[in-house]
C-alpha cells in the first residue's frame, strides 16, 4: 500500500501520468485494475483534502489581492503545468489582468 499512498500524495501529477500509462498499455491486468481504482479515487476532489486546501488557499490570496499576495501566486504559477495548483494560480493571474 505505500505505493498507493505515495501516488495519492502526488495526485496532481499522478492522474495524467496514470492516464498516459493506461493509453500506452500496461504490463498486467493487475496493474490496469489498480490504476483504474486509483484514478476513480483521485478524480474525486473531496478525496484529497490537501488539494482542496491548496485551491482554497489560492482563493484567499486572490481575495487579499496585495503586492505580496501577487508574488506568492506568481511563484505558484511558475510550477509544473500538470498540477492543479499551478493551473489555478495561472487562472488567478489571468483574472487579475485588467480586461475592461
Amino acid at each position, binding site marked *: 500500500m505505500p*505505493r*498507493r499512498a*505515495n*501516488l495519492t500524495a*502526488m495526485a*496532481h*501529477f*499522478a492522474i495524467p*501520468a*496514470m492516464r498516459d*500509462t493506461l493509453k500506452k498499455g*500496461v*504490463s*498486467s491486468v*493487475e*496493474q490496469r485494475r*489498480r*490504476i483504474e481504482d*486509483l484514478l476513480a479515487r483521485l478524480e474525486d*476532489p*473531496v478525496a484529497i*483534502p*490537501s488539494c*482542496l*486546501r*491548496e*485551491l*482554497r*488557499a*489560492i*482563493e*484567499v*490570496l*486572490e*481575495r*487579499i489581492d*496585495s503586492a*505580496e*499576495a501577487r508574488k*506568492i501566486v506568481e*511563484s*505558484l*504559477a*511558475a*510550477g*509544473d503545468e*500538470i*498540477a*492543479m*495548483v*499551478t493551473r*489555478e494560480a495561472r*487562472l*488567478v493571474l*489571468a*483574472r487579475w489582468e485588467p*480586461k*475592461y
Partner: protein
Amino acid sequence: MRFCRRSGEAPACNRCFNNGKARSGARTSAQSAGSIEAPSGLPCACRACRLGIGARRQRHLAAEWALQVPEENGGVVAARGQRFAVGGEVQGANRAGAANWHRMLASWPFIPRGKRTCAIHETANGPTPGPVRRPQRDSLLGTSPPTAKTLATGCDDTTVSSGTWSAHSAARLALPPRTDAEADKLWQALGNPDGASMEPALWALVRAPERALPLLKQRLQAARSPERLQALIGQLDRAISRSRCRGARI
C-alpha cells in the same frame, strides 16, 4: 415573444425589453461584471445591442468562459475548459450539478418569477454556504469558476450575465486570527470537505493578511513533477506479483 424596442425585431434581449436600459442593481446583489451573449443563442436584433453584445463577447472570451443558454425551463450547460456544470428540471425543481473543479454553483427552485433568492452550493460536496439574491427574474441557473469569484447566469433571452459573488454575511463576520496558532487552525480548516464549515476560515484569513500571507507563503509551494512517479506506477503490480510468487512456492 419579445420585440426589440428599437428595431421592432424579435427576439429582444433584456436590455431592450426594459426600454434599452440595463436594470442596474437587479442583475446581482454583488458587483456586476457585465453580460455576455451565449455562443448558441440568438442575439437581440438591434444594432446597438449587437455592438454591445459583441464587446461583451470579447470579455467573455478573455475570461475563458463558454456558456450555452438553457431552453426555457430546461437545462443549462456551462463549460470552462474541461470543467462543466449541468442543470435540469428534476422533481419539479431546477437542480444543478457540476463536475470537476467548479467550486460554487447557484441554483434556485423552479418557481418562475417567484422567489428572488437562489442557493449557492459548494460543488465538491453539496452543502450550501448561503443564499444569494437571484440576479434576474428570468435567470435559470448560475455557475462560477472554481474560486467562486464570478457568478454567471443564463436567461431565456439568450444572454448570460456574470457578476462577482461575495460571501454571505456570516462568513464575512469570521474573526481574523490573532496568533499564529489560530492561523494554523484556519489553514487546517481550509481542507475541510464541508464547504459551509470551511467558508468562515477562508474569510478569517482574508481579513488578516498580515498573518495569512506569511503562512501561505510557507505552506504553498510551486508544484514540481516528481521524478519517481513513473517508477511508482510501474511498481503497482509488483507487490502483488511477489506475494503470488511466495504463494506459489508454498
